């Protein structure tokens, strides 16, 4: 590949409207296009082409090494009738709901508290953000201990209050709660920081005016803070949906099983088998790459639909 000649060209006239010579306009901006090209080239090579290939793959049967067999729509037909896939969607949504709503609630409270005058604000911010940068794997291992039956912290607390022990990692609901708690713990601080940024954009005059009109703190929160925070809330909700619906490491590490079992089974009764975990199991345990690709596209559709529904709900609530 030869490098471009380093001849001085007169710089492109900036004032010239591109509409006059559309073709010449685009060409005359080649330097700018070249400047942004690295990202697009990399994205093409490592993003778009693999995505396209996975779509191609989902119409085939392939064990990852041998030759591919054309399978038409049969992978998708099986996907629709695959009860395991549907139950994994159910698991994912339940875990997502158990994790997201408490998380948004806690994050909002945290942010409002941080937004009022406290000392060491930056220390708090740092502390709240910390869970988000810890390794999920390490956290999951710790949470495995926290939720263990006989020596777990949670059960110790339950017993201290005089309640019975719960075999968290051995019951379908316990598993879901444990995974959701882990996700909540990990993301609350991160979202609190985002909320805090949103809170700080609300002009102080509004609060002052509200105080003058005799609004209490609760009223102020619901009449001023919440409506103005709507775009931020929407952002957080969409991001949480996309990350929450793709949860994989949390159940995988939390429910790691013995050597003679798959690490992607998701515990007893597959209670913790999320969509991505199922995709992984089908692809890498069963070496069924074609079906794995079909599952991946199924996941994609679910996430898209869910994000749209989310968007609509939050939008509408704002219009009422």
């Amino acid at each position, binding site marked *: 590949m030869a490098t471009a000649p380093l001849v001085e060209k007169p710089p492109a006239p900036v004032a010239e409207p591109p509409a006059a010579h559309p073709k010449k306009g685009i060409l005359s901006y080649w330097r700018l296009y*070249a400047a942004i090209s690295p990202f697009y080239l990399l994205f093409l090579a490592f993003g778009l082409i693999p995505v396209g290939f996975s779509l191609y793959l989902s119409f085939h049967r392939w*064990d990852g090494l041998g030759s591919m067999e054309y399978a038409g729509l049969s992978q998708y037909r099986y996907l629709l009738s695959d009860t395991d896939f549907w139950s994994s969607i159910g698991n994912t949504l339940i875990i997502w709901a158990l994790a997201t709503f408490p998380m948004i609630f806690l994050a909002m409270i945290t942010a409002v508290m941080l937004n009022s005058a406290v000392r060491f604000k930056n220390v708090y911010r740092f502390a709240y953000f910390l869970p988000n940068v810890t390794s999920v794997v390490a956290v999951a291992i710790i949470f495995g201990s926290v939720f263990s*039956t006989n020596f777990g912290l949670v059960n110790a607390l339950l017993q201290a209050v005089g309640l019975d022990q719960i075999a968290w990692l051995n019951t379908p609901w316990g598993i879901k709660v444990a995974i959701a708690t882990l996700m909540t713990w990990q993301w609350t601080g991160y979202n609190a920081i985002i909320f805090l940024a949103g809170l700080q954009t609300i002009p102080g005059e509004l609060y002052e005016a509200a105080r003058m009109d005799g609004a209490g703190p609760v009223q102020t929160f619901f009449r001023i803070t919440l409506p103005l925070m709507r775009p931020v809330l929407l952002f957080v909700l969409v991001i949480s949906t996309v990350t929450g619906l793709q949860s994989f490491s949390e159940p995988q590490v939390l429910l790691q099983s013995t050597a003679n079992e798959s690490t992607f089974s998701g515990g007893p009764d597959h209670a913790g088998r999320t969509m991505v975990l199922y995709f992984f199991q089908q692809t890498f345990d069963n070496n069924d790459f074609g079906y794995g690709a079909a599952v991946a596209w199924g996941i994609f559709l679910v996430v898209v639909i869910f994000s749209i529904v989310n968007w609509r709900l939050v939008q509408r609530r704002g219009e009422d």
Partner: protein
Amino acid sequence: MRLSRRGLLRAGLAGTAATALGGLASGCAVPTGSTGRNMVLWYWSGGLSDTVVKKAKARYDSAVDLDAIQIGGYYRSKLITTMTGQAHVPDIAGLKGEDMASYLPNADQFVDLRTLGAEKLKSQYLDWKWQQGVAPDGSLVGFPIDVGPVVQYYQPAVYEKAGLAYEPDDVSKEMGTWDQFFAAGEQLKKRVRGAFILTDITSVFEMSIGQGTQRFVDEDKHFIGDQEHVRVCWDRAVEAKRRGLASSIVTGTPDSISATESGELPSQLNASWAAGDLKLQYPKTKGRWRVANCPGGPSNVGGSFLAITKACREPEKAFEIITWLLNADNQAQGFMDAGLFPSTPASYELKKLRENDPFFGDQITMDVYGPAAEKIPVAFNSPYDVALGQPIRDEIKNVGVLGKNPEKAWKDAMSKCRRIADHLGVSY
């Protein structure tokens, strides 16, 4: 020469673009495999003895540059990705035992070791292990590294307290069958409060399957997981549940660690390599363990192979290296370094493997492992075995952990198996 800022920018840009495009372009022209002087070996941490690998490097230094790379993470997918990409494919690749069934249908990606004179060495290796490396078309894909004979690890002090046999020979004799083992489990439960002979019932099912000569799918791509040989294993695990012989503890949690240390879980049915895990996890229990035969006969868990890929330029040299790495002497070293139990019976007689192990109360554990390894039954392992065994394993777990009705669980497992068989084109 004075460079204007703009010129500098442009030069930088052109350079970046050239690098980016050059990088992309060079991706199409890499040599596959080795170039003759270089011999790349892929394995994973603990897959081979590091001492032996180092020795091999020095030994073959004049002929080739042996580059042994430990691949971390999900080994199998990295290997097949590289092989499918047909670039930088290792000359010699380790293949894990549990993945073997999925490699064998693609035997054409590997060199048939028979063409390099492997048959001459066949008698030095365990026959059942050798068979596991043979593809459906008869070619030899994998050369045996190690095996994982299953034994019963137990704490004699707890057995003695329960009034059970506690010397290794006696335990092997008096708990030789599953029935005897279960009876012992009932006695243990009665006499020692809170103690269970089994952590979970899944291990009973798993070891029982391994003791048979058939698994879930046969050579003709036919589902046989609904037949008597599987049903017997299933019923045995269900019986262990019914008689309350298994704890409700999840393996690998802090609960299981403390229960093992305190003697509430005094027994483990596990492969030879689990001895290393015991020593690592429970250093405090040194001397409190013994090894005896697994009830119901020997079975195997794990164990791997080395293979030569089609990308290798010098298969003869690679074969020479493999056979040297895996000769009886070096396999003995592998057992001492990494707990890799030799697939070469000649190693079992070596003095260095017949030493008293202080962790096991100075027992010579080879006396139990060795005979077990030689008697492991041969069973056909189909590429569809994992997918079609999974529903049955899942359901036995539901019986054990959630107390699901065994009949319903069996029915559910079978209907799921049939659905998966349909999808994979397996007949039933």
